[in-house]
């Protein structure tokens, strides 16, 4: 459905600039693209998109670096990639509130996790919230029996009682709840006001530096779509369902656990350094994971002024 819609607003105009855009087919990753499709924003911003769907961030960065993509979408777990110089962040998309540390009924505090088996998809926001939570509860990652597994494995393993706790997110937590209704949520994003889990759009380094005009056009489009979404969530969900053929219920659940900022709010957060602080605190986490050698200065890869100046 996406491929043929992309030409809609493009009647007779040779002026449109081609752009290769990657996204992930969940609500966070696809909603802005869906809005742009639905509202004809591409043509309006002088763009002709080539949309490519991926299942994770690192693959998109590889495609970016291989020159097959110009722009892509990353979740918080992949933000170390731009931090290590592999791409530039051009826009903040949303702030994730979906992450949880969950435990079997009976385990009521972080401290009680000591020595327990904890499943976590490594390197994801689930991993990050687990570490934050453990630190807050006075434990380190070595105090629990951490078992790395991918997200759907966490669902199965928790559901069948193979693990005692997990760092995972909604809507998967919802899925697990169907099997373990009385599971305990030990920690959630709001417990850590200093650390935000933003999702972002990134650009290939060469594009960000060499095609300022294009970058600016895309940033402008993102702004407009962003504000549309903030104002019309229902319509956005419908558009996303149409784009991805995905299940509406899951998108709804996902949307409930995200904070969508307006572009004005993002402008402000950029101006007062909050955005850079979000990234900085994540970078510290990445360093503790061993993903980054040093906590890079976000100013080197977050192109805040591109976003704020794009209208």
């Amino acid at each position, binding site marked *: 459905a996406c491929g043929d819609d992309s030409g809609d607003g493009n009647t007779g105009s040779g002026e449109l600039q081609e752009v290769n855009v990657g996204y992930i087919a*969940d609500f966070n990753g696809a909603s802005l693209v869906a809005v742009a499709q639905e509202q004809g924003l591409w043509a309006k911003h002088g763009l002709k998109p080539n949309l490519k769907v991926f299942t994770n961030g690192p693959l998109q960065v*590889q495609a970016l670096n291989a020159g*097959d993509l110009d722009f892509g979408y990353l979740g918080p777990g992949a933000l170390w990639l731009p931090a290590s110089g592999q791409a530039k962040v051009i826009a903040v998309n949303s702030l994730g509130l979906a992450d949880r540390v969950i435990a079997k009924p009976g385990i009521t505090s972080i401290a009680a996790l000591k020595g327990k088996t904890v499943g976590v998809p490594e390197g994801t926001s689930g991993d990050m919230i687990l570490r934050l939570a453990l630190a807050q509860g006075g434990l380190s990652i070595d105090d629990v029996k951490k078992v790395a597994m991918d997200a759907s494995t966490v669902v199965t393993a928790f559901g069948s009682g193979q693990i005692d706790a997990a760092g995972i997110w909604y809507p998967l937590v919802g899925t697990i709840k169907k099997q373990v209704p009385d599971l305990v949520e030990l920690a959630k994003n709001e417990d850590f006001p200093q650390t935000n889990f933003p999702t972002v759009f990134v650009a290939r380094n060469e594009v960000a530096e060499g095609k300022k005009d294009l970058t600016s056009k895309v940033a402008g489009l993102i702004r407009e779509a962003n504000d549309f979404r903030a104002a019309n969530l229902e319509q956005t969900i419908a558009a996303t369902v149409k784009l991805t053929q995905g299940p509406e219920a899951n998108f709804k659940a996902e949307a409930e656990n995200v904070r969508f900022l307006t572009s004005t709010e993002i402008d402000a957060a950029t101006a007062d350094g909050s955005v850079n602080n979000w990234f900085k605190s994540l970078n510290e986490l990445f360093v503790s994971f061993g993903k980054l050698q040093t906590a890079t200065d976000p100013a080197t890869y977050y192109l805040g002024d591109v976003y704020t100046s794009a209208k």
Partner: protein
Amino acid sequence: MLALNVVAVAVGLGVWAGLARAGVEGLPGPVAVARRGWELIESGTLLKDTAASLRRVLIGFLLGSLLAIPVGFLMGWYVTARGLIEPYVQFFRTIPPLAIIPLAIVLLGIGETPKIFVITLAAFLSSVISTFQGVVSVDKTLINAARVLGARDGVTFRRVVVPASSPFILVGMRIGLGSAWATLVAAELIAAQQGVGYRMQQAQLYYDLPTIFVGLITIGVLGLIMDRILLLIERRLTRWQERR
């Protein structure tokens, strides 16, 4: 035979339904899966996905198998070729397709080519060992018979080695076909817009098990059909064999 197959499938469905009802964690029952399957068919998604995946698997499988025949021959026939090629075949066979993907993206981009390439590679690597063994196992007296009738290497290969090793080649193709399908999911990690494997990954994002099962069954059934076709071809090609 067909009756037995039907029995087997019925038993399988029974076990599945039993497991699902017995409340094995998260396992959707046949009914839930059938309902989801119907939805996907109605919306046309399944058809489009299937068409996209089938195309990739078919092309990849055919390329891989066809390539395996001459390469397996070279390896079986010429010691030099074997020494040069074999280490690579063995090496790449042990490497999971997932690990090939980054390289495929770097070298081939994110279009159809790298997807088909990954599948081709999987089919090729399974087939080539079998073809090679087939070439090595051909009865020497048949080769001699061809040579005394005036056949040079090329003819001997085409008209004696290939038919004589056709049971091996077909084993290779059947295993290769399985590998091709099993690699589909990995291949469709590479920026696929549609495809059964892609749909399954998407479903995995939300742990949408019914959709995953629809995907598995689709792949399984398509694989089975293609395998039957291969078997029919095999029957035709190896009718000359004296076998039980």
